[in-house]
């Protein structure tokens, strides 16, 4: 069975924000809610690196584990979805998530956060595929249309990959081989000789 994955090739990500804006376009995500954002570390320094982050649809997703009302669930494709009708906005998933993916429309001190929203891998939610109700709560369901998540489809430099983990893993592997940096290949210095990193 396929397992859907995102992979961001940081050698290619140029922080153009296409993934973030196209997500808003596709799903009509309102101002203030961002399902995917590009994080840049060491901004303006020699080792500046950008990476596009959203829900990573973890294999053993901690959000699913902690949800007290079982509103989060994982599909057979490995996509983590949630049911907005049962979400109580407790925020546990936010604390559990290593990527900061779950978001809430409200941020008052004592009030409710409101219903959680996050990246759906463009797979909608529990409503009927392609229904108006699904669109209004979760956005488009591209997966049901035989398409991939829009963020990866439009990525300007093909940094962001989405699809079956084995396939995109192979794409990335071939890419690293093609780059042919030998011992300077991505990750080499970081993993073994961090002191040599310029």
């Amino acid at each position: 069975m396929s397992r859907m994955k995102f992979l961001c090739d940081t050698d290619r990500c140029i922080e153009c924000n296409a993934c973030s804006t196209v997500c808003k376009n596709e799903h009509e995500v309102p101002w203030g809610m961002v399902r995917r954002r590009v994080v840049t570390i060491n901004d303006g320094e020699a080792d500046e690196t950008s990476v596009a982050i959203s829900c990573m649809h973890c294999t053993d997703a901690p959000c699913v584990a902690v949800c007290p009302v079982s509103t989060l669930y994982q599909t057979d494709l490995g996509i983590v979805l949630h049911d907005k009708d049962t979400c109580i906005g407790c925020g546990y998933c936010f604390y559990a998530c290593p990527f900061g993916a779950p978001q809430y429309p409200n941020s008052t001190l004592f009030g409710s956060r409101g219903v959680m929203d996050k990246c759906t891998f463009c797979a909608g939610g529990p409503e009927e595929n392609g229904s108006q109700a699904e669109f209004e709560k979760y956005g488009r369901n591209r997966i049901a249309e035989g398409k991939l998540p829009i963020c990866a489809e439009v990525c300007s430099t093909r940094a962001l990959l989405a699809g079956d983990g084995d396939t995109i893993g192979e794409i990335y592997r071939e890419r690293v081989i093609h780059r042919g940096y030998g011992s300077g290949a991505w990750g080499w210095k970081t993993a073994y000789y961090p002191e040599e990193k310029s």
Partner: protein
Amino acid sequence: MLKRKTFDRPGQSPSAPRPGRAAPLGAAEASAPSRRDFLRNSGLMGLALGAGWSAGTVQRAEASTPYTSGEVTRHKTICHFCSVGCSVWAEVQQGVWIGQEPVFESPVNQGTHCAKGAAMREIAISERRLKYPMKKEGGVWKRISWDQAMQEIAEKQLAIREKYGPDSSYWLGSAKFSNEQSYLFRKFVAFWGTNNIDHQARICHSTTVAGVANTFGYGAMTNTFNDIRNSRSIIILGGNPAEAHPVSMLHVLAGKENGAPLIVVDPRFTRTAAHADEYVRIRPGADVGFINGLIREILANGWEDREYLRQRVFGLDELRAEVEKWTPEEVERVSGIPADQTRRVARTLAENRPGTLIWCMGLTQSHIGNNKTRAASILQLVLGNIGKSGGGTNIFRGHDNVQGATDMGVSCDTLPAYYGLSEGAWKHWARVWGVDYDWVKGRFGSKELMEKAGMPVSRWLDGVLEDPANLEQPNPVKAMTFWGHAANSLTRGPEQRAALDTVELLTIIDPHPTQVAIMTDKTDGVYLLPAASTAESHGTVTNSNRSVQMRDQVVDPIFESKTDYEIVRLFAEAFGFADKLFQGIRIVDGVPDAYDLLREINRGCWTIGYTGQSPERLRLHMDHQDKFDSVSLLGKEEPVKGEYYCLPWPAWGKDTHGHPGTPLLYDTSKSVREGGLPFRARWGVEHEGRNLLAEDSFTKGSEIRDGYPEGTIGMLQALGWAGELTDREMLIAVAIAADRFSLDMLEMPDAEVRDAMDRLEEFARQNRLDRKGEALATDEGSWQGGPFEANTGGNGDGTKKPGDKPAEKKAEKKNKEKADSNAPTDRASVRRRFPDYPDNAITAISAYLADNPQDDPKPDAPLRDKIMRVNWKTDLSGGVQRVMLAHNLAPYGNGKARMVVWNFPDPVPVHREPLYTVRRDLLPEYKTLEDRRMWRLPVLYESIQEQDYSQEFPMILTSGRLVEFEGGGDETRSNKWLAEFQQQMFVEINPADAGAAGIENKAFCWVRTPVGNLRVQAMVTRRVDPGVAFMPFHFAGMWMGEDLSHRYPVGTVPYVIGEASNTAQTYGYDSVTQMQETKATICRIEPA
């Protein structure tokens, strides 16, 4: 199946219905995808990442979804932001643009987008658009009807015309225009009777166009985006494609991953630099020094391509003399680049050939921008990189159609296709337009004004404010029209504001009110007309690599907006020349048809080969995007086999001649018929006795196996090829020579051609066409200098003071040219001067010299001579080009590229300090030019540089782009999806400077310049060096600390406002094109 997918939840009625997708598209609808679907899609992407993938089949199958009303329809449009030219699938339901899908089959973007392209749909559903015509009445915005607006504006325009003359109306066009609108707008303004017309190219790449055109022949990107994948090295000078042209990085990074070292030269450590193998930090403004240093290093080590230089390049000795002083140590002193780094970069470029050189506004926006672009071009010549796959000067243009709008002459100094403004050029276009030359002349204030360049957009404010005694036109500008142009992209804010307040009539035609509407304190006489966005209109756009892509209309104009074409029609009707303007152009529901306009463009734009791109051919290319190779852009299958994607100009001859377009300019490895070209023989055959033609270099299959001049009837005659012209082609050539051309000659049945020729001969006999005063079509003098005709203005030799009469200089120049043209033309003499040239080359050169002198033709020339001078640019039959192509010759000849542009102020590029410089120690050694006059206005240089501001303003200020916004930003800051990601105007300052000034990160501060003060947030970062500050230029709505947003009409305030960096940008204009200097000025930063 997705788990819990069928869970039904009744009773969900949407409170605010919005367009959802009624039925999913494509074959895979409703059913969950199979594993095969995933693999297929993933596989497509995988191939895209690896090598050589072109297009997907999945999207194509869906593209054939039939158009049914009420259902979802799909329309292919071209992204309306930058010049990469990404295709977009738009999904429309019930007239609303509801979804956007990637176009994987586009060979240019291959489905990808940047933030802007990914958010394009917003413009067509935007709530912040200007919704209906408005006028300001007593300082209050009031809604009016289109009828009232057009009536009042037209009355006021005509009154101003009556009182002050046509030159007191300034028409500012746009790089957002389609080719057809650009062309129509140029023609419209010609019919109005002024050359005061311009657009954004003036302030983005005018120095590129002038510099490159005067070096190689054409002012455009030489290769394609995709071709960068073939580069062995990539150097980016003053460009940040990761933010300005993100999709180009698809190809740039592919080139890098193929092994090309990526070198980025910039004062800032940009997002692009973060991906570079070598980052070179340069002091703003010191580019020529660095480039000349690289050239010196290459020459000193013997790394230059000697054979290439001998065969194809003119002026190496002069170059050698200039670069000699640019030792790596001198480069370090001037630019701050370590000497070893200069040496290392030179070695990298020399060892990795062919390499490409990319530049953008970091190079162009300078008072010596033309020097910088020429220096960069020369570096590539020295390395032998021009005309090769993987090489080239790849100049990324700015807006989506800035290349096309430039080509179509939305400029104060030329008619469409760079014909210039000479009498010959006007007569050519009068023939194409089917109007009487004398009628057009009568529309102008005088023949002199008709042939005199207007005022460039960078100086329009001076056209209002300058003392009328200093103006070379009857009256200052009184009516200003901003048609798709922002005010905040122009420097000298306070003076521009004064100019806006001074004009009698201010008209803004735009999808948004723009900064213009709120900047002015005028209480009356301000009109806002809502223009449709590009998605609401159709036409063609030329991307940076010269491919002419077709854009379909996605939705009808929203709110009360109208397309640009229709607005031109309304003006033309109000001014009373609509009949003449739209001869032969269908008007459909009030909107002139773009494709009829394109056919007219095809009829006239011979100089740059915009003649083969008929609507039918372009439609075929757009419908078969998947059949083009993703690297070479060559069509691999019928019906586009053998043609290059969207026929990158020049596509010589008529569409029926089948030229495939020219993907790589000056590439001699292909025949001209297959899209190859030599350098253009644009400046004659000799200069001061030295050969300007190529030597032993020619395109594959060329029948003249050496250099040759540009094509004329006389040359064809001498070579014995005139017989190959058809009767119709002869008729048209003779008719043009005899000034008896009429458009029906293009269409009349073959049987009537002979009769028409007989009538013409009879007419010639009766009227003795050798009478005095008969001017000819080939006024070479004014066409030679290129689009920015520095050779006719007041900047001939860099030594004159303002007040010198340009006419005198023109005369001087003419005398000089005469000396050249008086060179003996007899065969023996030509053979002496062009030794070792084959016989047919000698014949061609002799014929060229005999029939096509470099100056105005003799007024009493006999008709035969006039016929012989009809050439590849003026021959409306296309016969000259067709016959030359048949012999595999380039219509424009086979010449040398120039390292010495003798008609520019600095013939060989030299470094000059910015007008406002903190490096006073480099003066007077690297001082600027003397003050002068140009294009109806005085231009200041040394009188500004002489004043020392460096104590008061010790920091360097530069500016640039952000990925989310474009240009003045009125459109993108009103786009909710983009605006959210960039909500604050800021200034980047180094921690050292911030610490010294006591400014914390994210605190507000004042950026002060000699012109103005901006209150912006501080971004403290080592991205900039100590002593350098950077600001993005897309913001508006704030004015020196004051919030102007309440001045917008209700409901049109952009989501994000901020200070416009150009409000405080200083004086400084390029010596050839009047480009503004924004990349190197001075400032001081204080806590707010």
